[in-house]
């Protein structure tokens, strides 16, 4: 017949609970803080009663999910670093009957999950090296190797941890959420794979009371780094689209409008000008102060004594083809886009009416001009694209990229569009909340 046991502390007779599996070696009495050896007739090894217990949000016996696995907190160990008095962190020993043991690491509102790995090749590891390779990942030494010592212990542990026991750490970082820790104690050299967790999710899962919850705020650079590291396909496409758009902007910024003629005209005149670049369009801008003055002028462009373009109040044509309608009778200006070949040209301005000579008409000819209407589909695409990502993914990188791209394309005018997008998001978000 099986016997049923109950455990009592050999020092104070307080009831002891054992939560962990077969590898648990010591437990600490919650009342008198005596550490009891479960392998050696429940001998009291030492006592932590004079230690000041740090404030932490987790308690022994709490259960919650990490990486979709249910874990129970069975032990707690507090380490203190060698450089500062407040350099302390807590490591909670987790137990799952399916997955064995793991660690929940808590340091000033930052929570990570760590599990021992056996597939790191310690034989090839060089402790002086600044890099380490694990599972096709490249890890870089985060900071100088450091020592930490045991400050406080509670609950169950799988080894005998004494106060001031020293461990040397090598922390390697692959990304903000993924690191590899090599720990050397007196007896063992162990490797742990550590993943940073969403603190709020952990608190919710372990049922930590709201007042106990401490969450370390991430800096903007940490947030961006984290978002860039997430290998989600949508993020990847988003980042690719941002890259393509930025590249396009860079290319476009190299192509700047160049004014090749800019004149104030008072009467009939002839002006030579040269077209050097044939990329994109040539833009002719005619401006006047009143329609009556504008209607008294005729503008034409000749190349090798052949008239190729002409515009006046009655008609406009280019290389003998009519170019739609000319300016309206009430217009005070006109803008015409042409594609002129490289070469020498002559602008002829003819005064065909009796307007006075004091009020000038200005004419400006530019080359390498991109029409705004070409940008419109691109602009709409960018706005829709970022609206989708901002609302759907709720990631900081997209609004930042959106603002930068808008500023790049439209300068300060973009603030209007940005405002528009912010209002749209607020509206959509409110709508979805109401749903």
């Amino acid at each position, binding site marked *: 017949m099986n016997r049923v046991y109950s455990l009592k502390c050999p020092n104070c007779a307080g009831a002891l609970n054992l939560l962990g599996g077969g590898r648990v070696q010591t437990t600490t009495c919650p009342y008198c803080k005596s550490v009891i050896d479960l*392998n050696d007739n429940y001998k009291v090894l030492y006592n932590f009663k004079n230690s000041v217990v740090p404030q932490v949000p987790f308690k022994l016996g709490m259960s919650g999910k990490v990486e979709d696995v249910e874990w129970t907190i069975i032990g707690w160990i507090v380490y203190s670093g060698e450089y500062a008095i407040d350099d302390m962190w807590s490591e909670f020993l987790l137990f799952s009957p399916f997955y064995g043991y793991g660690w929940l690491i808590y340091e000033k509102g930052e929570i990570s999950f760590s599990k021992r*790995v056996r597939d790191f090749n310690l034989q090839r590891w060089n402790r002086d090296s600044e890099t380490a390779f694990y599972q096709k990942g490249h890890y870089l030494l985060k900071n100088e190797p450091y020592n930490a010592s045991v400050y406080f212990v509670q609950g169950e542990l799988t080894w005998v941890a004494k106060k001031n026991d020293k461990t040397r750490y090598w922390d390697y970082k692959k990304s903000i959420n993924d690191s590899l820790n090599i720990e050397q104690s007196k007896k063992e050299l162990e490797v742990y794979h550590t993943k940073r967790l969403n603190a709020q999710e952990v608190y919710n899962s372990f049922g930590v009371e709201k007042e106990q919850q401490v969450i370390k705020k991430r800096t903007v650079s940490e947030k961006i780094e984290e978002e860039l590291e997430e290998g989600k396909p949508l993020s990847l496409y988003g980042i690719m689209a941002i890259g393509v758009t930025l590249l396009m902007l860079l290319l476009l910024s190299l192509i700047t409008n160049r004014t090749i003629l800019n004149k104030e005209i008072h009467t009939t005149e002839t002006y030579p000008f040269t077209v050097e670049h044939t990329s994109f369009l040539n833009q002719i801008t005619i401006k006047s102060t009143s329609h009556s003055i504008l209607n008294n002028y005729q503008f034409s462009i000749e190349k090798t004594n052949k008239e190729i373009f002409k515009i006046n109040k009655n008609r406009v044509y280019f290389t003998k083809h009519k170019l739609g309608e000319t300016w309206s009778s009430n217009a005070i200006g006109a803008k015409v886009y042409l594609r002129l070949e490289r070469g020498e040209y002559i602008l002829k301005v003819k005064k065909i009416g009796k307007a006075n000579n004091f009020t000038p008409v200005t004419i400006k000819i530019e080359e390498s001009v991109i029409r705004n209407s070409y940008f419109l589909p691109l602009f709409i695409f960018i706005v829709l694209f970022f609206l989708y990502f901002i609302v759907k993914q709720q990631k900081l990188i997209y609004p930042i990229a959106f603002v930068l791209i808008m500023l790049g394309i439209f300068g300060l005018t973009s603030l209007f569009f940005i405002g528009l997008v912010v209002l749209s998001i607020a509206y959509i978000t409110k709508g979805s909340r109401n749903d």
Partner: protein
Amino acid sequence: MKNQPLYQTTIEKTINCPQCGDELPIYFKWTKLVECQSCKSSIFLEDDSVKFIGKASTLSPEPSLLELRVPISIEDKIYTPLGKIRYSYGRGFWEEWFLIGGKHHNLEFWLSVDEGDFVLESKANIVLPFKNIERLSVGKKYGKFVVTEIGEGECMGFEGELPEPIAIGDIHKYAHLSEGGSDLMTIESSSDEIKIFRGNWIDPFSIKRLYG
């Protein structure tokens, strides 16, 4: 075709329990020992004959990622657990799961499960320069291998079917030798022979049930 499962274990043959007469499906061609699911008798299979060798010890149910005859995948390879042996090491126990896998699902594998530590191994044809496992000691180097663990356990019982006979109380001695990284060699010693296994440490998070 639509309703067919993605994967199915083949029943190699069926025998009748000599104790209770119930039908016993055998999933592995080379099975030597099987536990009757109805009367919990241990049945020894020798050539075409079956022999009752006693009652098997009923193992207490323990939570596990594996379940008998429920296929699993480990790093995209499919295995079916057909049997398990539980060994006691005093304060606790570990389990050795017998799996079949491979391209034709007829190769023998062993998955050692010890509170979150998983090692998947298969038999290797390696001749050792010694015949006594006692000669090994932790930390000692043998070529590119280092002895990392030596231990022993006592068989507490088994479930399902096994490719070799085992009895409750049998002492199982073993030594783990690491090649570095996840590569591992295990030497097992019993009263009459030494067996060598080669394999790897397995990340338990990589073990997935195929169904359910």
